[in-house]
């Protein structure tokens, strides 16, 4: 899966979870950019991302992830 494809799929997940068809995420997107993305929604988001890509984040990754770009990197490395 290419990085572009990962982002395409991430967009779908973000749109479902935040129920907003306008969302487009980039490498730099963080929780500050999406109004409803708080610490509680974060859990739900990660679970939805895990499901969409058929992978799991470990605790270290969850703790260190800074933005959507890093999320995509982890996904790519897991799918590798």
């Amino acid at each position, binding site marked *: 899966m290419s990085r572009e494809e990962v982002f395409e799929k991430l967009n779908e*997940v973000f749109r*479902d*979870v*935040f*129920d907003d068809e306008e969302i487009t995420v980039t490498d730099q997107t963080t929780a500050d950019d999406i109004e409803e993305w708080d610490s*509680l929604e974060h*859990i*739900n988001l990660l*679970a*939805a991302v895990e*499901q969409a890509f058929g992978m799991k984040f*470990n*605790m270290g990754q*969850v*703790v260190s992830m800074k933005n959507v770009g890093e999320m995509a990197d982890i996904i790519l490395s897991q799918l590798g």
Partner: protein
Amino acid sequence: MQELTYPFDGKMILKKSKKLKRALLERQTDFLEKRIAVLGGSTTHDIIRILELFLLEQGIRPVFYESEYAQYWQDAMFDNPRLTDFAPELIFIHTSNRNVTDYPAPADTKERVEELFSEQFSHFRVMWDKLADTYHCPVIQNNFEYPYYRLLGNQEAVYIQGRISFLNRLNEAFYQYAREHENFYIHDINYLSAAYGLESWSDPLYWHMYKYACCMQAIPAFAHNLSLIIKSIFGKNKKALALDLDNTLWGGIVGDDGPENLEIGQETPMGQVYAEFQAYLKAQKDIGVMLTVNSKNEEENALAGLRHPEGVLKPEDFILIKANWEPKSQNISEIAQELAILPDSMVFVDDNPAEREIVQLQIPGVAVPEIGTPEQYVKILDRSGFFEVTKLSEDDRKRNEMYLANAERKKQQAQFGDYREYLRSLEMKGTIKPFEALYMARIAQLSNKSNQFNLTTRRYTQNEIEAFAADERYITRYGKLADRFGDNGVVSVVIGRCGAAEDAAAYLQDGQTARKTDASADRSVLHIELWLMSCRVLKRDMEYAMMDSIVEACRARGIGTIMGYYYPTAKNAMVKDFYAVMGFEKTEKTDTGVTSWRFVIPADYAPKNTVIAVEKESV
């Protein structure tokens, strides 16, 4: 909606919860609103988010109180104006084995283990007692799931120092408390976590990362299971099963293959599967579920199939058998009508997806589970929880007998030319008295599930019912009816508040203001806040007997006027003119269709009931 009926896709629900919620709110308007307090020992945010969906699906619109993180005990035990103001109608305590603060250690003595056990148990017991005292509403409490590791390995449940042994004992003490306290229910997460898979359920990442007691993915299963108890408490259980026959109750088609060639019984693996399913269905009768047949068949073939010597279900296990070539949706409507229940309290079970689809489209609200393949039937019906038991009452166990007795009465009725004569032949015996301790549960249950013969459709908890009984301003009556075919149990309930004539204006709204302010000391008029009757005793003159009893109670208190109110709903049109029939005169009608009715008790009031021998209050 199908997305929220078992077996559901939990991950999809988690992801699309916002969209689902919107759709649910658009689909329906007449929700039952309930205030639910969630007191958590771990994070509860997503549990509430998903629980809301499953409750909306059941027609209940919850308003939530959520305790601060892990403050369940403090919230319950100490003065809590926020919770008091919220006035919960149900409290759910979300604790898990992570909330056991002190476990035995392998070196502990028996005495030490006992001490720990009693400490941990009383922590919960005092809280439950306090909640019951303060809030008088149903309480649902999680039991404990097993821990995800075992220091003592396979002996963890054997040694009293083992955590599994300790949790098993706590669970048993929880169950004992539930047996002894009527308004207290166990949410069995021990079973649920086992069914889900304990290893995934208790993924420690979710505890350490987010303080969730179970993994995120298990939350839909958790919320669904919890919603079953809540909807059952609030009277939203289903009442009857409408069952297809061919390839649903047995393998094969009785009309084509002949009864002797059906797969049912111990001879073949598939025959065993169907026999187990039949046994499961037969047992439903013991918890008050009514069984009916809805099959495309010649009736004689259907009966021949049901008389198969290896079959578990027999023709007499069914209250009604509709075996014909009419559309199954039409049969469902007729079954509902004949049983005097609403179509949306039925569950339709059919192996054929096309039949399921037609019924689903034609009859809104009827449950149509996707039951899968024969070996999955039991599991899917069972986990769907259509008939979730919260009160195993004598009445439920007898319900099938009562409906069969009703069928007998109908046969009798056909033999009598004169209806009065028929009623007299029933030798009816009624009991009409103020609310008594023995019947509080049944009275509350009736107030929550009667829709059709219900003038005001007010829903009450058992505690509220008890409060009315104890309140001098109120006149309460319950009515039981028996006849020579059987005992119908408690079938009618009336609650009236003695107040001033002016209170009528408030009752034309909803009566809340009249009750809250209750300013006047004037108690000269009885305002009827609730009058309901079970449809199984329609046209038996029970309503007249209730009226007589109310008039008598009014006279004893010097009350000369009775005011009745009718609040229209989607389901209670049958009693629109009930008060006119009782001899009341209409006084007002609002824009929303609420009507008020007055009855001035004449000096020469003659009892309206002449066919039921009534045993009264011994005053």
